[in-house]
């Protein structure tokens, strides 16, 4: 995650060209080592055990290590040892930049210092990015007092004790699902509460029942088609019916996992079929929570609001 955050920063500052960034990302993919592979390589788990944990991950919102420990495949000490090895992966992009000769040690040191300063993330939050700690990272985008206050003050249709926290959990699960089903290069670039949101394309879905919410993925056609294509494992170059459907299925699968989790807390919820809109505006008397996200396929927004906002 850190490599993508840092790479996205370098791209934005024109310290890397899009072609260089693409090349770097391709090289990162080739050396990406997951915890399961580390566990096999270290002899702590068999391939069969790793497959079983991966299968469980498809239905449980838990990390690989948590499931492996719960099933007795790893001890807590084993897991910490493996995580210690895995965390060094955040050095991959920096090392690749040096190896390719695009950055000197000094240039890299300066760029890292500027990155830490300009992202407005604390040292602990930067560490969360390095540790792939999605919950802590998402929490950083909800520490904006104005955003939290607007979410807490919004009229909620349903029984929710902590509305801002519920939305924060929703966003964290969404980021994990993007990593799991679309691309590991997820970068959150901003969060805001607004009363209207213009979009080129929107695929939205209503959550109904004891809590009423609308969720949407909005953005430009090319970016959404690229993301939908990654999810559906299809080559999608434009926001045609298949791409719209792929984004709808991504949102539907994510919302399904979110609702399954809430069902354990006793909330009885349901989903409406996803709906697509083109060149319109979401309007809401309560606040629209907009999370800006960048993937290697392009940028888009995740929108969450209580009730049913008007679409003008």
């Amino acid at each position, binding site marked *: 995650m850190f490599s993508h955050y840092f790479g996205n920063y370098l791209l934005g500052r024109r310290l890397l060209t899009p072609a260089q960034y693409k090349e770097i990302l391709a090289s990162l993919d080739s050396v990406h080592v997951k915890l399961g592979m580390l566990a096999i390589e270290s002899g702590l788990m068999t391939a069969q055990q790793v497959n079983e944990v991966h299968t469980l991950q498809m*239905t449980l919102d838990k990390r690989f290590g948590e499931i492996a420990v719960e099933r007795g495949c790893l001890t807590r000490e084993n897991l910490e040892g493996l995580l210690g090895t895995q965390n060094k992966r955040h050095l991959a992009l920096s090392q690749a930049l040096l190896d390719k000769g695009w950055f000197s040690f000094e240039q890299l040191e300066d760029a890292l210092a500027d990155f830490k300063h300009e992202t407005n993330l604390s040292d602990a939050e930067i560490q969360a990015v390095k540790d792939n700690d999605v919950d802590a990272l998402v929490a950083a985008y909800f520490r904006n007092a104005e955003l939290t206050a607007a979410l807490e003050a919004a009229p909620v249709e349903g029984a929710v004790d902590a509305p801002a926290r519920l939305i924060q959990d929703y966003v964290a699960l969404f980021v994990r699902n993007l990593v799991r089903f679309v691309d590991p290069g997820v970068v959150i670039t901003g969060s805001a509460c607004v009363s209207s949101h213009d979009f080129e394309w929107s695929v939205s879905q209503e959550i109904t029942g004891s809590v009423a919410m609308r969720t949407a993925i909005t953005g430009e056609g090319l970016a959404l088609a690229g993301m939908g294509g990654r999810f559906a494992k299809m080559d999608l170059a434009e926001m045609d019916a298949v791409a719209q459907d792929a984004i709808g299925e991504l949102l539907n699968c994510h919302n399904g996992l979110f609702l399954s989790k809430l069902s354990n807390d006793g909330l009885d919820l349901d989903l409406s079929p996803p709906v697509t809109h083109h060149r319109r505006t979401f309007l809401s008397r309560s606040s629209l929570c907009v999370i800006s996200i960048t993937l290697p396929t392009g940028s888009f927004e995740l929108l969450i609001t209580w009730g049913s906002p008007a679409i003008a």
Partner: protein
Amino acid sequence: MARILIVDDSIVSRSNLRRILEEAGHEVAGEAGDGASGLEQYGQLRPDLVTMDITMPGMSGLDCLKGIMEKDPTAKVVMMTAIGQGPKIMEALESGACHYVTKPFETSKVVEAISDVLCS
């Protein structure tokens, strides 16, 4: 090998299911994009098994399931759902569905569920 009818409003889900089923040696007898079309095609095709999405515009998967069970109480229907728990799954099983699989589809889960239902 079984003849299977896919009922799902998602083009992507239908495409994934078709690939999984055909790779497992089954024949896709037909595809329907909504519950009403699924009900109609069930009467025409009389497949060995139906995979049924729950959330669809128009006639829902639950209503389509109930319609199929009225026509043919021996029908074998496997529900496909994004929500892995909750009252709709219970209602589907009480209404005659034999099994359910959660989205996003995992090949082994789909093949196992269909194999279990066909063997029962």
